[in-house]
């Protein structure tokens, strides 16, 4: 009898443990089902040698002269109209943020518009802006931006540029419970996001790995970006 009771207690505890694990798993480890613009998230075309699950961010590139009003590219060019654009405008859509990057006509600076929700046809779409100086074609500073952008649940998100190696096809940035995958595009630094904000809110940390077109890991690094300038 005692033995039967003990077995029952163990079974109840076991069920409770499994239930609590499922609860944890569904709360903190599920990757987002949608990107911030509402499109369904999907896996990258190749499996990267990076943490799983992996979510592919969207990337679109358009010539500045062809950017239409109402699109993210067009709205960023309008909001940042004091900086004449040249060449491609790269629009990235991730699980927590949208960012648009373009080069100015002087060729010496990069401009980014950052948003944490779908872009509408007004200046209020953008929660941040970054302006980065290029020296010999290299970005001097990642231009961390964390002052104005929050997720729909109110958590701060930070944006920064990362300059990948010339052999890099994909970046994977570790997020809570998943990896966000960014295809490299047009030779531009990649504007990436994180929710890993420092306690003094003057910095953020990005855990990054760089991958070949096959998904093979090329190198990994931690970017400790600081708010500056």
């Amino acid at each position: 009898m005692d033995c039967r009771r003990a077995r029952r207690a163990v079974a109840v505890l076991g069920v409770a443990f499994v239930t609590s694990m499922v609860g944890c798993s569904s709360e903190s480890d599920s990757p987002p089902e949608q990107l911030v613009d509402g499109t369904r998230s999907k896996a990258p075309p190749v499996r990267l040698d990076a943490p799983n699950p992996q979510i592919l961010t969207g990337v679109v590139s358009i010539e500045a002269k062809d950017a239409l009003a109402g699109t993210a590219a067009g709205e960023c060019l309008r909001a940042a109209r004091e900086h004449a654009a040249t060449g491609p405008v790269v629009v990235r859509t991730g699980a927590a943020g949208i960012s648009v990057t373009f080069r100015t006509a002087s060729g010496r600076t990069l401009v980014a518009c950052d948003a944490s929700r779908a872009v509408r046809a007004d200046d209020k779409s953008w929660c941040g802006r970054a302006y980065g100086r290029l020296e010999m074609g290299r970005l001097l500073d990642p231009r961390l931006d964390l002052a104005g952008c929050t997720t729909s649940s109110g958590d701060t998100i930070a944006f920064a540029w990362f300059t990948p190696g010339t052999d890099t096809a994909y970046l994977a940035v570790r997020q809570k419970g998943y990896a966000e995958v960014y295809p490299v595009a047009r030779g531009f630094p990649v504007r990436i996001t994180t929710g890993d904000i420092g306690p003094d809110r003057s910095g953020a940390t990005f855990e990054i790995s760089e991958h070949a077109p096959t998904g093979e890991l090329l190198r990994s690094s931690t970017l400790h970006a600081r708010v500056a300038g």
Partner: protein
Amino acid sequence: MPTPRSFVIGLIVGIALVAAGSAAAYHTRFVADNCNYAAPTPTSYITRDGSATVALRARYEGYQWAGGCWNDNDHDDSPNDPHEDPATGGEGGDCSGFTFKVWRESLSTSDASFQQWGMLRHVHGPYTSAAFKAGTGAPNTTVSKAALIKMDALASDGHIGLIYATNPDGTDQIIEAKGEDYGTNIWTRTYRGSSSYSGVRRTGWSS
């Protein structure tokens, strides 16, 4: 036994290698030796003149990219830092870190309260000059350039300076953390007439 010529060549190469190594690893001990992480003191009565006094204590001090810690000895304790390197540990704020401290802001962008930071508190704050320019954060707002008064700011996407006084010719005396080569000081500037610059105000002053 090396010949005198090979010795001299070797010496020159050695000195060049040492110099190159120290340039790549430029780092001062100013922050490590002097700065702290003390909590700020909340303050309710706050004036523009009081913030001007905070700013003047940083005058003649250094400039540090992503920095926000300085003393008051009227001397740049870490001159000639490399540009745009946040890791050099030098004295001074950068333009936005200086503004954050002079405006006595909170680390939380949704908090408009006034916070008194010690000069030697190593803090930059969450705002870049571009964020200030956009009026981001509960304490900050954009304002027309014609309406700017003492301790309001003129901000572009890459720089911000505070109005210390306005000159009769319409230019302004700007107190600003200007750059590694200049430190922090007051200069006459024409930001108000530049289309790159917008007016920004810290709200909530008592006077």
